[in-house]
């Protein structure tokens, strides 16, 4: 098969495996070989892959924490502004800055901001929403939602060299190896 004169840029190489054990073993070998920019696609979540790829830590947690703390501060200053600066009303002789009464709203704002940070942070980091993906051009990739397991080594990986990486993947006994075009 000829790619023609203007060869499209390569996004990565993707290998297809037939079962759980094969993809776990292959991912382990790939990580051991030094590849970092890898993705796995499986029909159901595999905890082992999370461990191998060190995906238990994710940066969304930090985004949520910052979002939550921001919400807490916003909740406080919103009420402070309303009851101390904008509409200072004496309620039963209590101080204008009645912070104990502010706590429920501060808590709710913390939860609100944290939830939105979680959702938006997750979307941004996963580059979502994304209606199409180069992987969908690969004919067999649709089996990733059925009974096949895919491992993709991305071209941005420093160890990535088209031929060497292809050979490396072939040695892992995949069903087949495909090129993903950008």
């Amino acid at each position: 098969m000829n790619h023609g004169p203007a060869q499209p840029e390569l996004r990565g190489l993707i290998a297809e495996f037939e079962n759980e054990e094969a993809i776990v073993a292959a991912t382990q070998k790939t990580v051991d070989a030094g590849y970092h920019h890898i993705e796995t696609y499986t029909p159901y979540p595999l905890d082992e892959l999370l461990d191998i790829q060190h995906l238990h830590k994710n940066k969304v947690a930090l985004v949520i924490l910052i979002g939550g703390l921001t919400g807490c501060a916003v909740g406080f200053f919103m009420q402070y502004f309303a009851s101390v600066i904008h509409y200072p009303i004496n309620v039963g002789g209590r101080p204008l800055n009645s912070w104990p009464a502010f706590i429920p709203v501060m808590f709710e704002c913390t939860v609100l901001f944290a939830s939105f940070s979680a959702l938006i942070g997750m979307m941004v980091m996963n580059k979502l929403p994304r209606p199409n993906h180069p992987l969908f051009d690969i004919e067999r990739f649709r089996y990733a939602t059925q009974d096949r397991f895919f491992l993709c080594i991305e071209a941005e990986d420093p160890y990535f060299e088209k031929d060497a990486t292809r050979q490396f993947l072939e040695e892992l006994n995949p069903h087949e190896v495909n090129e993903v075009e950008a």
Partner: protein
Amino acid sequence: MTAISSTLFNQIGSIQSRALTIGVILVLGGLLYAFAMDDMSGFYQAYLVGYMICAGITLVCMAFIMLHHLIGGRWGFVIQRLLEAAMSTLPVLLVLFIPIVLGMHDLYHWTHAEVVAVDPILQHKASYLNVPFFLVRTAGYFAIWIIASFLLIKWSRAQDTSGDPRLLDKMRNVCGPGVVIFALTMTFASFDWIMSTDPHWFSTLYGVMMIVNSGGAALSFIVIMMTWLRKHEPISGLADADRFHDWGKLLLAFTLLWFYMMLSQFLIIWAANLPEENPWYVHRVHGGWEVVSVVLVLCRFVIAFFLLLSIPRKRDPSRLVRVAWFILAMHLVDIFWHVAPNFHPGGFAVSVLDVIVPIGLGGIWFYFVLNRLKRNPLIPQKDPRFEELVESVSKSSVAKA
């Protein structure tokens, strides 16, 4: 895997005798000190604090067992025997209640007939707050708790030998109503034992607050014990990072609940600002007690909350156990904060008794926990849910290897 190993048996034995020695020395030392300083009421207050800590942890352990039998889950299976050992101390706690009965006059203002005679509020409450009814209620709580714990331990042991699946159904039949009855009895026990030290004041939330406070302490106790027991078979294979993560998450949940309860009660009383409700807080924000209040909220909630947010810390037993000790220490401050200001409303007062007597009582209680723990296999045998658990654990550990 039927009985515990002889190394562990001996290790438990030596810790046990140390716990008992330290416990008896501290409690008797406290008693002598109280005699010498003529401060028996100080002794009884400290004893009440220690008693509430031990009883609270014991009762919440029983509630955890009931929940575990009802809803299952891997978090409860590994600790089932530890929880059973803890709840087997209920008859001991009944005996340990005797000093509180002896010290009633020092602890409970409402037992003084001459005070009640000139106090319309206490007269109004006299049909509930009187000595005979107080004793009958306490006896009733213990009767219910001891029967429930006795049945649950008996059937759990029977399951070890027979493996009869009907035993689990039997346990569940006790646990369903048991959870409700536990919540009610512990609520009223908290009203009677702790809340009535300030007989004018009342809070309907108080019982739940005590359950939640004790829940945090009980989980800390579980984490501390499992960090030790995971070095031994068969716990070592079952108490992995996932289980500690579970207990850490529960500890975080109870830390949040603790603050939720504290704030709910405070906010309602603060907002209403009624003279019959607010003295309790007025005592706790004046005369030095405000320092204890602030330290308590900072340590038990703010610091504990941020420490427990970290996933790696929850998954690492040696780091989680430090948080657990911290929370357990704060629980002592917490119960002290609940009891002591009622006796020293004028200003902050703490004596050596407030430290040594609760720790001593804890030592004695711990002796009886270990006494039960070493006699049974550390993991329930032939439980219908066991195979499923071992399968999932071995599967994930193979993948990690």
